[in-house]
């Protein structure tokens, strides 16, 4: 038995595969259409200056590798977790892209350091509605960070585990897990089929804990809250009962400092992305996404976390190079008032 088992329910964990640097979750026992993919997009780090920024572009997927391929090079704890490895430079940002080709709905929980990115609560595999601690795909195409206000997130920024910046360290006082944790739960077959039939008809924490940091693991990275970005976490339009919590898949994504990536895998890590200022000065596009859906409120736990820049200022540290305020001029509105889009929303630089 690994992890927390859902009470009263048989553990029917399903297969995850790694396909072209994407995690693909399939639930053929639930429905042939029940599949979704998650990839981790490289991106610009927006300034952590208190201003609200639009969505930055995707600069391609981070590479993902099986932990099992590098067991000899990894610490015991990493080997036990299984899952995949992903390289990030210190202070580099990322966003998660969710894709369900068939439009099959999924509830997806995302945690960093085993802290929920939507609520700030400790990792739990069961879905909760009050407050909602999961995302609904395909309504939610992306997640760029921690929900800190209704309609606002703080960007996921990689920081060394043990330096006190990560949300895990801010909320638990420990630097134990780092990385990203994901669980995907498909919609119940009956509800999905009912939706398809309907479609056919239509077509026509208050005080911070005392922080005791563990010894930093040289290559371990966690995610910390960076700059503020306009992004809504959509309220579940289906309700808790539609999710088939008997079936789920989960994955631990260990984040490796890019400096150690080559010694572990023998591969070059991706180059560092351009700075936000370089990107904005070149007139390249930013994005503003709109869906006609309700958004969830932020919890006090995540509202009360401090950004990397705020913690650095207290520590007299300077971990964020090129953090000056910028003015993104070329903001492209994207989105839809229609129900769940079936095609993948494009959020990337135009082809040369």
């Amino acid at each position, binding site marked *: 038995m690994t992890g927390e088992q859902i009470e009263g329910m048989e553990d029917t964990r399903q*297969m*995850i*595969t790694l396909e072209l640097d994407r995690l693909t979750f399939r639930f*053929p026992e639930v429905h042939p259409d029940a599949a979704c993919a998650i990839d981790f997009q490289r991106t610009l780090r927006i300034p952590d200056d208190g201003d609200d920024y639009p969505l930055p572009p995707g600069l391609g997927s981070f590479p993902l590798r*099986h*932990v099992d391929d590098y067991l000899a090079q990894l610490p015991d704890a990493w080997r036990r977790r*299984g899952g995949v490895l992903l390289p990030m430079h210190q202070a580099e940002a990322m966003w998660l892209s969710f894709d369900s080709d068939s439009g099959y709905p999924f509830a997806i929980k995302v945690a960093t350091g085993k802290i929920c990115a939507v609520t700030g609560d400790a990792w739990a595999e069961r879905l909760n509605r009050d407050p909602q601690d999961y995302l609904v795909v395909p309504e939610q195409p992306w997640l760029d960070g921690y929900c800190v206000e209704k309609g606002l997130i703080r960007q996921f920024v990689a920081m060394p585990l043990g330096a006190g910046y990560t949300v895990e360290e801010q909320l638990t006082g420990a630097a134990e897990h780092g990385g990203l944790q994901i669980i995907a739960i498909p919609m119940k077959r009956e509800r999905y089929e009912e939706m398809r039939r309907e479609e056919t008809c239509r077509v026509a924490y208050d005080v911070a804990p005392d922080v005791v940091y563990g010894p930093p693991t040289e290559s371990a990275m966690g995610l910390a809250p960076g700059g503020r970005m306009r992004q809504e976490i959509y309220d579940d339009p289906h309700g808790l009962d539609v999710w088939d919590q008997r079936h789920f898949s989960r994955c631990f994504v260990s984040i490796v400092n890019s400096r150690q990536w080559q010694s572990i895998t023998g591969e070059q890590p991706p180059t560092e992305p351009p700075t936000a200022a370089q990107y904005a000065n070149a007139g390249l596009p930013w994005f503003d996404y709109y869906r006609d859906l309700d958004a969830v409120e932020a919890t006090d736990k995540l509202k009360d976390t401090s950004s990397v820049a705020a913690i650095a200022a207290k520590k007299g540290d300077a971990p964020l190079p090129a953090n000056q305020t910028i003015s993104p001029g070329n903001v492209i509105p994207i989105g839809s008032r*229609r129900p769940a889009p079936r095609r*993948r929303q494009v959020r990337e630089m135009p*082809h040369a």
Partner: protein
Amino acid sequence: MTHFGVTVRETRERLRQNDRSYSLRQVAQRVGVEPAYLSKIERGDVAPPSEATTKRLARELGEDPDVLLALGGKVSSDLQEIIRRRPRLFADLLRQLREAPDHAILRVVREVRDGDW
């Protein structure tokens, strides 16, 4: 018309029913080709485009790039490289699985191991 061209045209036209940005001109622009060239591709007047263009087209239309490449008579260069690195092993594997049903092939697909955390 080739099967490739028919698939591209039918997929684009289906998307266009709900979204006018899927016109021939706008899709061509987003994919980085001339509208006249995309029109010829759809009609089968020219051979299917390069691997890079096919992948951009697949992404734009929400189609699987490997499926679209196969319709165009191509195999993705990353798959070719996988076979080139270990030709005997992968050639043998593919030949053995040639007639296997889909569910049997899925059983040999490598799973991401979920451990204890």
